[in-house]
């Protein structure tokens, strides 16, 4: 059964880059949102297995969306995919319940590692 992946990022290019790094041998069902609020709504609608969340976005930023998602489902698996790798930013999202931070730009290796960590938790 394919895993539902929600990617929340305001950049279509960034979403494309991230999707291209997923292992081709596995089956994933991708869903995408362009800001934190749209991501939150889509999360409620589809109940993804794993959510990849950017931080710097219009309408609702990723940290706020992460906090809202955790209110909806405290067990939600959210990986923050961001260019903002300041120590305070990372510790903030970890405090909010992110599983980990994936530094941009993604690579096949970094995404594979993130998925291994997330899938170990999901299953």
């Amino acid at each position: 059964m394919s895993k539902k992946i929600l990617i929340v990022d305001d950049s279509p290019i960034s979403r494309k880059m991230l999707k291209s790094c997923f292992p081709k041998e596995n089956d994933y069902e991708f869903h995408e949102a362009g800001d934190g609020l749209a991501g939150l709504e889509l999360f409620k609608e589809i109940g993804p297995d794993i959510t990849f969340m950017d931080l710097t976005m219009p309408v609702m930023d990723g940290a706020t969306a992460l906090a809202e998602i955790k209110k909806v489902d405290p067990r939600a698996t959210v990986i923050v995919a961001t260019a903002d790798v300041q120590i305070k930013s990372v510790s903030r999202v970890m405090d909010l319940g992110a599983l980990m931070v994936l530094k941009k730009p993604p690579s096949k290796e970094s995404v594979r590692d993130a998925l291994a960590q997330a899938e170990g938790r999901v299953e």
Partner: protein
Amino acid sequence: MESEQTLLNDEEKDILQEIMNIAFGQAAADLAEMINVFVVLNVPYIKVLKAVDLPHYLKTEIAGYDTICMVEQHFWGEFKGSAFLIFPAGSGKELVTIMGEGQDPQFESAIVDGMEKETLMEVGNILIGACVGKVAELLDDRVTYSPPRIVVENHASNAIPANIFDLHSSAIVLRTVFTFNERAVSGFLFLVTKCESIVWLRQALAVFMERYE
């Protein structure tokens, strides 16, 4: 007369915006690590415009500032152009204060004055260097830099040179707005690259995205 083909299409602008986002994230992390400030990032913005319109555009963007302080630095590689880091006047002193937090609680006024340029130089060097350097790295380029030029307490209308580019060329403006430590110190970083870089840039962006096909 330039061809429309020398300008960036929407997808190329999106790619460059994402690269800028990554680069500025790195710059912020470097700054946070080196001088213990937290930088609040905003979504970067890209605009391609005629060079002849550039001084007016820059002045319009900073129209809210009566006077400014600015770090200007030029860079050369395949990717070449100028970086302008612009704060409202007085921000240098505020940055000195922010960086002094947790250390000596009191600075003599004269010392603060003397430190303002040094602080702006340091912040400018880190932000511009990390940002331009990361863009160059991601696009497999290598750039060299001019020494930074610092303008303190100038009127915005005087600070931006009117003749920085060939009037017949185009310029790409990469703008981001940032805030330090959630305090009222915010500013703009503009990277302005020349038309002659755009042909190279388009190819470099295509090569960059091939990794993600």
